[in-house]
């Protein structure tokens, strides 16, 4: 018998009773809806108001992050966007990388990059110091 029908292997995690894929599916939709507001708001404030991109410099960031509102906005946006993007790329790697080893290494690289972005971004938001600019004569820098 000759046939070109591809052989489909049994699901890899059959024994697993984990609902991880269900939760990640729900997370993509919930975080996606929130990110529409957070990202489009971020783009509008940074690129459309005032002189748009010409206003964005160190003083602009210092002004925004002097407000807990924008610190919180950026922190939530950072975490949701990075987790949403990581889960999206995880799905794409699972779909297109056929060899077990390739999937393993691509996902290891993905998770490493995600941890770096989340940790670095969070530290930057919480440890930002406007007073490293010697031109700043804000009262908090005295």
């Amino acid at each position, binding site marked *: 018998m000759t046939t070109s029908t591809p052989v489909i292997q049994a699901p890899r995690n059959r024994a697993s009773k984990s609902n991880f894929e269900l939760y990640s599916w729900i997370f993509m*939709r919930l975080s*996606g*809806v929130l*990110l*529409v507001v957070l*990202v*489009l708001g971020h*783009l509008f404030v940074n*690129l*459309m108001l005032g*002189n*748009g*991109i*010409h206003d*964005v*410099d*160190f*003083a602009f*960031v210092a002004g925004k992050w002097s407000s807990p509102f924008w610190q919180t906005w950026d922190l939530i946006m*950072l975490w949701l*966007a*990075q987790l949403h*993007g*990581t889960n*999206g*790329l995880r799905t*794409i790697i699972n779909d297109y990388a056929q060899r077990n080893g390739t999937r393993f290494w691509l996902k290891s690289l993905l998770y490493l*990059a995600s941890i770096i*972005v989340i940790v*670095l*971004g969070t*530290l*930057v938001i919480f*440890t*930002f*110091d406007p007073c*490293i*600019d010697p*031109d700043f004569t804000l009262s908090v820098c005295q």
Partner: protein
Amino acid sequence: MWSWVAHRVSGVLIFFFLFAHVLDTALVRVSPEAYNDIMATYKNPVVGLLEAGLVAGVLFHAFNGLRVVLIDFWSQGPRYQRQLSYGVIVVCVVLFVPFAIRHLSLVFGH
């Protein structure tokens, strides 16, 4: 089908931009000069055009994502998925055109 492909492509592009964007923003912890230098590249016309492309990708991913949510959770979503696709294109164009006019006149006007 094509909106599914475009959703993946735009998602991957936004992912790589986010990686670069968090790293460039982290330069505010190095020095004001380091951050202002990297922001100067964002203001150059070539990068300004790429930003417009990025925003087009973000708008498509955002509103096509909302379409996916409607198809999944709204009882009438699957029936209207085609009309929703046209809606995504209309909303993206309506938002992108004024954005592009304003952003590109800022980028090229200075």
